[in-house]
């Protein structure tokens, strides 16, 4: 089919829109490796800003990774069984619980942070530890894990699978780990990637909760832009992107329906589903 003018106009528009979004990002990353931003590239390229940022903020970056992993562990341990129980007992109470679980997404991060400070502010040791940040992150990311797993569970007839496993002698734990979890794999992976990505980039909540000893990557980024040279902030952004882009690519492949591994898993699940019965029974 010959591609007409329309196609090229649409393509051009799409490219323009992409450029509008990407060019600032590229410029920012470029600034991170320029000797002097205000002189531009002519002043030369250098890695010294990146080295300086690393020297100043490496603990912050490691802390962010640790918190992200911690959030992942907590949401896996709490979220997957929660999603299972919610999927198993549909009803009014379940719906209410689901809705309240999703609240942290709807409420501004600042409000959630304030709530945490008011509730736990008196426990000084807790308040000034990374654990406090972790709690905030878990509150924020848990609904994503639960939703992702719930979505997959709703699309498969896990109840009959469980009955099949039970008829063969499998107890509740065996069924959960041997049948439910493997078949909810797609949702768990999607949820996991979402949790890690969101946690690394989380700013609103953390900005209110942090202390100088418990800074995370995005907070450090704001800090460096506010108090240091533009090149430093840009170098910091560069490091951030290098960390986050691989995660986003994985997310794209596993979490969205078109991504290939996800599509393959989905196909296995749907074609393993019962074929439509002949007559209603």
């Amino acid at each position: 089919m010959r591609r007409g003018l329309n196609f090229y106009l649409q393509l051009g528009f799409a490219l323009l829109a992409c450029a509008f979004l990407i060019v600032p990002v590229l410029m920012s990353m470029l600034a991170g490796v320029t000797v002097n931003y205000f002189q531009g590239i002519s002043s030369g390229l250098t890695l010294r800003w990146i080295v300086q940022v690393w020297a100043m903020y490496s603990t912050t970056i490691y802390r962010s990774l640790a918190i992200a992993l911690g959030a992942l562990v907590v949401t896996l341990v709490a979220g997957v069984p929660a999603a299972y129980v919610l999927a198993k007992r549909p009803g009014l109470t379940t719906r209410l619980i689901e809705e309240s679980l999703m609240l942290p997404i709807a409420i501004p991060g600042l409000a959630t942070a304030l709530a945490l400070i008011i509730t736990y502010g008196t426990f000084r040791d807790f308040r000034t530890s990374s654990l406090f940040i972790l709690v905030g992150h878990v509150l924020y990311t848990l609904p994503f894990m639960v939703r992702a797993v719930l979505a997959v569970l709703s699309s498969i007839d896990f109840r009959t699978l469980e009955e099949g496993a039970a008829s063969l002698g499998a107890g509740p734990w065996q069924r959960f780990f041997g049948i439910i979890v493997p078949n909810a794999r797609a949702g768990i992976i999607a949820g996991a990637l979402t949790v890690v990505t969101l946690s690394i980039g989380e700013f609103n909540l953390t900005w209110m909760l942090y202390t100088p000893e418990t800074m995370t990557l995005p907070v450090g980024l704001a800090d460096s832009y506010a108090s240091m040279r533009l090149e430093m902030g840009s170098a910091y952004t560069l490091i951030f992107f290098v960390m986050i882009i691989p995660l986003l690519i994985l997310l794209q492949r596993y979490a969205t329906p078109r991504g290939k591994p996800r599509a393959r898993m989905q196909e296995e699940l749907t074609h393993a589903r019962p074929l439509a019965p002949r007559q209603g029974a």
Partner: protein
Amino acid sequence: MSSPATHGGTRIRLVGCGKTFADGTRALDDTTLEIQGGETVVFLGPSGCGKTTLLRVIAGLETPDPGGRVFFDDEDVTALPIEQRNVGMVFQSYALFPNMDVEDNIAYGLKIRKVPAEQRARRVNEMLELTQIEELRGRRIHELSGGQRQRVALARAIAVQPRVLLLDEPLTALDALLRERLRIEVDLLLHSLGITSAYVTHDQSEAMAIGDRVAVMNRGRIVQVGTPRETYFHPANAFVADFIGTMNRVRGPVRDGAIELPGGRIPWPGAAADSIEVLFRPSDAHIVPLEGAPLRGKTTAQFFLGDRTRLHVSEIDSEPIIVETTEHREFRIGEPIGLSIEPGALLTLGG
């Protein structure tokens, strides 16, 4: 675990088992039933008659209402959940695990029972051979056809040598030809294993073919239990008569040793009466020459079914008589037909 044949056959006994669901539906009335060791009993009935609920009570997936008891031989298993009853179950949707291949699916029950790997592998091979699916051993579930899945489901259920095998409409999801073929295989398998089985279906020819006994159910209760022949030739009531095969019903007064109908007479040895209703099967109405035929009517419809032809004959009674014949010839609409009912094929249902 050397041969597929299992122990002599567990006897299943249900005493006063009823089931009311949380929303108040009375799915099963208090049911008392005994299934002999090695016997296959088919629960037959229309949708919603409670047959699946009854099966699930035997399985342990549903607990009967207080007072109901389930016994396997002399053991009271009422309080045991399904995972402790050592039953094998084949579901309508097969419930095969998508995260495992065929081999692992079949081995699952054995793994749960901690059967050592070598024994497990041997048993899996036996099962693959028994259900004739050796070539499918490494396949994923979504790559299998309906008939193949059914065999895997069967192999998986039998692999653990269950005391009792429970099948919930296992052939319903398959097309007609496959269903008929597999029906024979399943029947042979169940009998060669000598395993006590409870089989649920709404297809009455399937029930006849597979069951040693058939329990016909309607609205939560068993209305008749008997051999396929008993339920077919001696239905206990109108429901069974109508549900199993087709039944013709005619009504008329009895005079001079015959039932008088608008279209003729049917010899009847009983006493004279004002009105009597008799039933007979379409295949027991024979086409005879018009001259001297006891019943005479007119063909209003004909259906060629391949192995037989079904005719609707009017003017014998108020409703058309359905006749089934193996005659090869074609029948004309409006053609006069003479009929004679097979003596001894007439049934009454308590007047």
